[in-house]
């Protein structure tokens, strides 16, 4: 199966790879929201982190991903889109937009769903840490 040029581009030059600290640190930092979704036995694990400034804006985002090229590209794209957004704007990112942007084939749609889940989980984590009411939960499958 051939990958689309955009998937290859993100895979070869992934944006915003990294973490805002050790596992312990990122779970303690209040200005960081962490979303860890997927499972090793499914062949996909995404860790998405957002760093939120005092005005509630996502000033930075980072990811790490264990998964196929499409999963890596989806999470890389998600970090790009999240930067500079308000929290609730971040929640408006939909998996279908990722599918469209990366021209993902049907067998890879789950990668985009996982990326959307990771975004929601990271935002929910930030809100929970900071006592902000949240009515959106990560999808469960």
């Amino acid at each position, binding site marked *: 199966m051939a990958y689309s040029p955009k998937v290859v581009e993100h895979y070869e030059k992934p944006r915003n790879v990294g973490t805002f600290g050790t596992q312990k640190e990122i779970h303690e930092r209040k200005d960081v929201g962490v979303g860890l979704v997927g499972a*090793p036995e499914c062949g996909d694990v995404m860790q998405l982190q957002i760093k939120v400034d005092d005005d509630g804006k996502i000033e930075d985002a980072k990811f790490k991903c*264990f998964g*196929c090229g499409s999963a890596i590209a989806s999470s890389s794209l998600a970090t790009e889109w999240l930067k500079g957004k308000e929290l609730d704007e971040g929640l408006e990112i939909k998996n279908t937009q990722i599918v469209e942007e990366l021209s993902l084939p049907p067998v890879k749609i789950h990668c985009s769903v996982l990326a959307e889940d990771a975004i929601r989980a990271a935002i929910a984590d930030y809100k929970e840490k900071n006592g902000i009411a949240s009515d959106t939960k990560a999808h469960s499958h």
Partner: protein
Amino acid sequence: MAVTLPIYLDHAATTRCDPRVVDAMLPLFTENFGNPGSRNHSFGWNSEDAVDTARRQVADLIGADPKEIVFTSGATESNNLAIKGAANMYARKPAGQTGRGHIITAMHEHKAVLDPCKRLEKEGFDVTFLEPGTDGLITKDMVESAMRDDTILVTVMWANNEIGTINEIPEIGALCHDRGVVFHTDATQWVGKMPTDVKRDNVDLLSLSAHKMYGPKGVGALYVRRRRPRVRLTAIQEGGGQERGLRSGTLNVSGIVGLGKACELCAEEMDSEQQRLLKLRKRVEDKISASLDVIQVNGHADKRLPHITNISFGFVEGESLMMAVKDVAMSSGSACTSASLEPSYVLKALGVGDDLAHSSLRISFGRWSTEEEADFAADKIIEAVGKLRELSPLFDMHNEGIDVSKIEWNTH
């Protein structure tokens, strides 16, 4: 010597047809095109001669008599004919009833063995799917403990296609002969690479395929033992009665001639080729083991084919790994491209964890593989694993002393 890209290291999937094989085949298309079934003119006789030569070449490679070779369209057909044909011939009760007899096979057989066995299960036979050891082997003892009074057929592959492990075929064959049970082996990956003698090795039925040994696709053979014991089969495909009624249909003469030539070449070059391939395999395994931690070479350390290796890389997913090593054609144990997301059932049968089963590569060498290619592939793999581990949240957790298997994952 520089390498030419892309490099082909997927010889367990298929091989390049040897140009000497192609040369042998070409006259059969345009000059010597007769039907070997035409008994009353020279076109038919010439064609029959070509098939006879090929039948002898195949028989010689495996220590059989030419009369014991049935040409088929490949190993899948050979397996179907052997398994369904023997089961129906030696059934204890007629079709439509249960308790028709017991069949023993293994969980990590090729689908072309598993699916015929599952079909027979639906048709009233009992099937035992043996679980291999963590080294991937099926032993004589495993088969012996599964034997029952009503066992009629044992089918165990000679060497596994994903990991290259070699089962105890001569010993299992001896056991079957003691018990009066028919013994079939799918030898697709074995024949042509390793010395084979169906008489000495106690095999009753053996499947082989041309395209795994530098011959053309779409042709193979089934060895059917004629003496001590004489094995009988119920034909699946009926019609003109070719191949002593076991496989009707006009013979694929060009393909058969190609198979024969491929067998002859494999026999001539086997000893030196075996040593050469083993060196290539060890070279890659040693290079990778020396440079990377948390990897495992799957299957028994020594009881393996010289040309196949299967390596799992912790914290890295197989498909992304292949994408990073795109100049080298290999096979991934992960089936992430399928909707099921299931990792290799072969590796799972060995007890390889789901995470590692998703992270495996099968590298298989062949007649034209070189040391330079092996080095290039190993270097690329090492570089790619390093890059992907930088990206991997699991690798971070591992480095921070977190046991990834203890995390409660939100599985889909």
